[in-house]
């Protein structure tokens, strides 16, 4: 596949900017707090390069992943640092769940949070590309970035979307990544081309 042009990359960033905006709005509803988000930075990288980027922090991550198919296909991953993910669950459930029950349902809560946030993002992408995506059930993983990315196949390219989601008095950092095979990259490029020509 030829590299994405500057215009295609710009379109991709804008599509994600709008789509992740929906996700941020959903996160705000879930936690009951205002959510700020940074400008998304979009890169297409090898999984090795993503591992290098994350290796600086050495933090364990919680990842909720969903296989998706549509005008491009792959695996979407929402990642939080492990400490951030627990914070999100506590905010979401608040006083609705007794403390002793919280750890028991933590994994289920995280899967549901990922499901809701990723689907909000896909709805935005689908609207922009005038397409629809079907998503599998969410899967939850915890580990370092190498473990998480290699679960999707080490030879895949990663459409890596770096975005910082901030809750009012907390500092949560979330990342979105889309794992794609080379065939999918071409499909993505075609979708972007159609999107740009329809403007």
């Amino acid at each position: 596949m030829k590299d994405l042009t500057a215009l295609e990359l710009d379109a991709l960033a804008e599509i994600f900017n709008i789509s992740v905006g929906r996700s941020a709005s959903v996160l705000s509803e879930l936690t009951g707090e205002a959510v700020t988000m940074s400008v998304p930075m979009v890169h297409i990288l090898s999984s090795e390069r993503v591992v290098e980027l994350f290796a600086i922090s050495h933090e364990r991550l919680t990842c909720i992943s969903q296989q998706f198919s549509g005008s491009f296909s792959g695996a979407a991953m929402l990642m939080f640092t492990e400490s951030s993910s627990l914070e999100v669950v506590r905010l979401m459930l608040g006083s609705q769940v007794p403390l002793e029950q919280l750890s028991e349902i933590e994994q289920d809560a995280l899967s549901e949070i990922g499901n809701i946030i990723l689907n909000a993002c896909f709805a935005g992408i689908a609207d922009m590309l005038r397409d629809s995506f079907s998503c599998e059930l969410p899967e939850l993983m915890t580990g370092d970035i190498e473990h998480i990315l290699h679960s999707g196949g080490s030879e895949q390219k990663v459409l890596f979307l770096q975005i910082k989601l901030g809750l009012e008095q907390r500092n949560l950092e979330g990342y979105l990544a889309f794992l794609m095979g080379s065939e999918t990259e071409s499909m993505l490029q075609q979708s972007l081309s159609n999107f740009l020509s329809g403007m």
Partner: protein
Amino acid sequence: MLRTVLIVDDSRVSRMMLSKAIADLDPDWQIIEAENGQQAVEMGCEFAPNLVVMDVNMPVMDGFEAVEILRPKLPNTSFAMLTANVQASSQQRAEELGVHFLAKPVTPAVAEKALAIWRQEHEGSYSA
């Protein structure tokens, strides 16, 4: 008068949050739960609930398939899809099936809308 709502979701957390929100809003609702579409079909036939609030993406059988089976069997039941899949295609499918569409996350406002759907269809007072 006691009414029954069947909450169908593979996420235990979502079932818990919706159950609590409905119980807080109106204790006259008896709440029963199913974890997937297949269970929903079985419980729907057994209990004939007044209202079914159904997730879409679930293992074993998805929510749309379950509604397709249940609707003809439960003509007096109100149905609402409650899903994270807020794409236009999903909303269109709900419309084709003639059921209401609610977007996750589960909040007290969403629970109120679900109950309002039942009221609209049975008392003509929908205001959500």
